[in-house]
C-alpha cells in the first residue's frame, strides 16, 4: 500500500520498506546521493536508474564488484578441467596410437584448453553476476511505488531504506525533497 505526502505518519516505521525519491536528471540524483551519504551519513541507500550512472557508486558508497575474482577462479578450474579431460581420455583411460603422435601432448591440447577456460569463465561471469545481484527476485516492494515504470525509462530513483539507523519517516522524505526530488514516496514492506 502506498501513502501520499509526509505530514500524517499513518505508517508504522516497522512496516515501511523505505522512502523513494524521484529525480529527472542523473546529475541531480548523483548530487543528492552524495549529500545524503557523505553529508548526512545515511548508509542504506540505493539508486534505481534506467541505465548505469557513473559516479553513483562513490556517491552512495557502493563498494567495487568482486565478480572478477569469481570469474578468475572458474576460468582456472575450466583450464585444469580441460587438461585433465584430455589427459584422462586420450592418454590414460583408452590409449591409442594415432598418427604416430604421443598419447598426450600440450601442443594439440591448446584449443580445447582455451575454449573450456573461456566457457567456464563466461558462465561464472553471468551467473555470478545474477547471484551477486540476488536475481532472480520477482517480487520487490519498490515495484509497488507509483510511477515505477519510469524507473526503467527516463527517471532516476533514490531509495533510503527504513532499516537505516538514521531513517526517519518524517525527516527523510523532507530531506530528499530539499535535495531536488520531484516527489518522494514512502514504500511499504
Amino acid at each position, binding site marked *: 500500500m502506498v501513502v501520499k505526502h509526509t505530514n500524517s505518519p499513518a505508517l508504522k516505521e516497522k512496516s515501511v520498506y523505505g522512502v523513494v525519491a524521484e529525480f529527472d536528471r*542523473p*546529475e541531480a540524483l548523483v548530487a543528492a546521493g552524495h549529500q545524503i551519504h557523505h553529508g548526512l551519513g545515511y548508509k542504506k541507500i*540505493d*539508486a*534505481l*536508474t*534506467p*541505465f*548505469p*550512472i*557513473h*559516479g*553513483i*557508486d*562513490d556517491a552512495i558508497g*557502493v563498494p*567495487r*564488484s568482486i*565478480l572478477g575474482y569469481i*570469474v578468475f577462479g572458474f576460468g582456472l578450474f575450466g583450464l585444469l578441467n580441460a587438461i585433465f579431460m584430455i589427459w584422462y*581420455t*586420450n592418454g590414460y*583411460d*583408452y590409449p591409442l596410437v*594415432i598418427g604416430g*603422435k604421443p598419447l598426450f601432448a600440450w601442443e*594439440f*591440447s591448446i*584449443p*580445447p584448453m*582455451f*575454449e*573450456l577456460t*573461456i*566457457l567456464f*569463465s*563466461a*558462465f561464472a*561471469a*553471468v551467473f*555470478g*553476476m*545474477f547471484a*551477486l*545481484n540476488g*536475481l*532472480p*527476485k*520477482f*517480487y*520487490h516492494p*519498490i*515495484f509497488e511505488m507509483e510511477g*515505477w*515504470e*519510469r*524507473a*526503467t*525509462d*527516463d527517471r532516476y530513483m533514490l531509495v533510503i531504506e527504513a532499516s537505516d539507523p538514521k531513517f526517519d519517516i518524517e525527516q527523510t522524505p523532507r530531506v530528499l525533497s530539499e535535495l531536488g526530488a520531484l516527489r518522494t514516496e514512502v514504500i511499504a514492506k
Partner: protein
Amino acid sequence: MADLAIKDPHVTPVLVEGNPSLHEVTNDVAQIVEGINRNVPVQWYIALAITGSITLLLFAMLGYLVATGIGVWGNNQPVGWAWDITNFVFWIGIGHAGTLISAILFLFRQKWRTSINRFAEAMTLFAVACALIYPLFHTGRPWRAAYWLLPLPNTHLWVWPNFRSPLVWDVFAVSTYATVSALFWYVGLVPDLATMRDRATGLAQKIYGALSLGWRGSARHWRNYEMAYLILAGLSTPLVLSVHSVVSFDFATSVLPGWHTTIFPPYFVAGAIFSGFAMVVTLMVIARWAFQIEHLVTIKHLENMNKIMLATGTIVGYAYATEFFIAWYSGNPYERFVFINRAFGPYAWAYWTMISCNVISPQFFWFKKLRTSVAFMFVLSIFVNIGMWFERFVIIASSLHRDFLPSSWGYFVPTWVDILTFLGTFGLFLTLFLFFVRFLPMIAVSEVKGMMAHQQMHHDAHGHAAKDGAKTHDASPGLTPVTGGGH
C-alpha cells in the same frame, strides 16, 4: 580499429538524430514490439509464411539426407567436403560480427556500436544456429556423430574423441562460441526486458517479467552488471578471434596443398569480420527502413560498418595475394599448382567471382559518397556476402579436386539437394530474425540512452575536455554513463 574512434572530441558525431528525449527513444524501440503486439502488419505474416516454408524445406532436405545418405549431395572422391563445410564456414563467419561489435568495439570504446550491437548479436546467434547444422549433418552417420564427437560415456565402452583432430577442436570452439554469445546477448537484454516489462500489460508483462528476472536497475545491480559485461567483452574478444582460427585449423593442419597454410587463422578471422559486417549492413538497411528507426541507426553507423568492411576486405585481398606469393616462393610444385589451378583451372569462375566481390567491390567504399549511400551499400554488402561464400567454396573445393596424384583428380557439381539445403538455412536464419524483431527490443535501449545522456554531458561541458578523445570521459564531471562509453 582504433582509427575508427571519433577523432575530434569537440564535434560530437550525430549518433542519434533529431535529439529525441530518452522517453521518446524508449517509445521508438518498444513500440516496434508493442505496436506489432496490438496489430501485426500483414507484411510480417507474409514474410514469416515465406521464410517459414523455406525452413520446412530445410528440414525436409535434412530428413531426406539422413534417410538416404550423403550420396544425395554432390560430394565425391576426392571432393569429400563441398557445400556442406562451405556453408558451415560461411555461416560461422557471418556469426562473427555480433560478438565482435559487442566485445571488441566495446573495449575500443566505440560509442556508435550501441544502436546496432543487439541487432548484430541476434544475427550472430541465428547465423551460428544455421552453421551448427552442417558439422552434424555432413557426417555419414549423424545419429552417432551427435554424441561420439563429445567426450561422453557410451554403454559399450568409453571410447573417447581424438583430441588431435581439429574437428574436435571445432566442436569445442563453436559450441563455446554459441554459448557465450547467447549469454552475452541475454545479459545485454535484461535491462531492456525490464523496460518492456514495466511498459507491458497482461501476459506480455508476465513473460517479460519472468525473462527480466526482476531487474530493478539498482546501483548494486549495475555495478556487477558492468563488471560482468566488461569481463564478457574481455572473454569474447579472444574467443571470437579463436573461433575462426580453429575453424581454419580444419584446413591449415592438413597436408593438402592449398589448405596447409600458416596464414589461414588471421585471414579467416578478417574474412569472418568482413562477411559478418556485410550481413549486418544488408539486414540493418532493411530493418531501419521497415521500422522507421533511421534516427537511431544513422548513416553514421552504417558508414562506420562500411569502413570496417573496406578495411577487412582489403586485408582479405592482401591475404589472397600473400598466398600466391608464398606458393610461388615455397618452390613446392604441388603448392604452386594448386594456386595456379585455382585461378586458371576448372574453378577459375569461382575464384574470379570471389576476387571481384571481395577485393574489388569494397574499394568503392573509399568514396564517402558511395559509403554513405544506403542503396549502394545494400547492393555491395550483398556482393560481399556472395564473395565470401565463394571464398570458402574455392578454398575447399578447388584444393580438394586436384591434389597430389592426378589419377584421383575430379570435379564437384552440386545437386538439387545441396542447393535446397543451403537455401533452407537462409529460411531458418530469417525466420528466427522475424521472431526476434517481433518480440524483443532490437536496439539496446538502456545503452543508447546511456550514450545519449553522456553526449548531453558533453554539450553541457561544451567540450572543455582534454584534446584526447579517450580522456574526455575521465575529465568530464563524474557523470559519464558507462555502458557504450567505458570507464
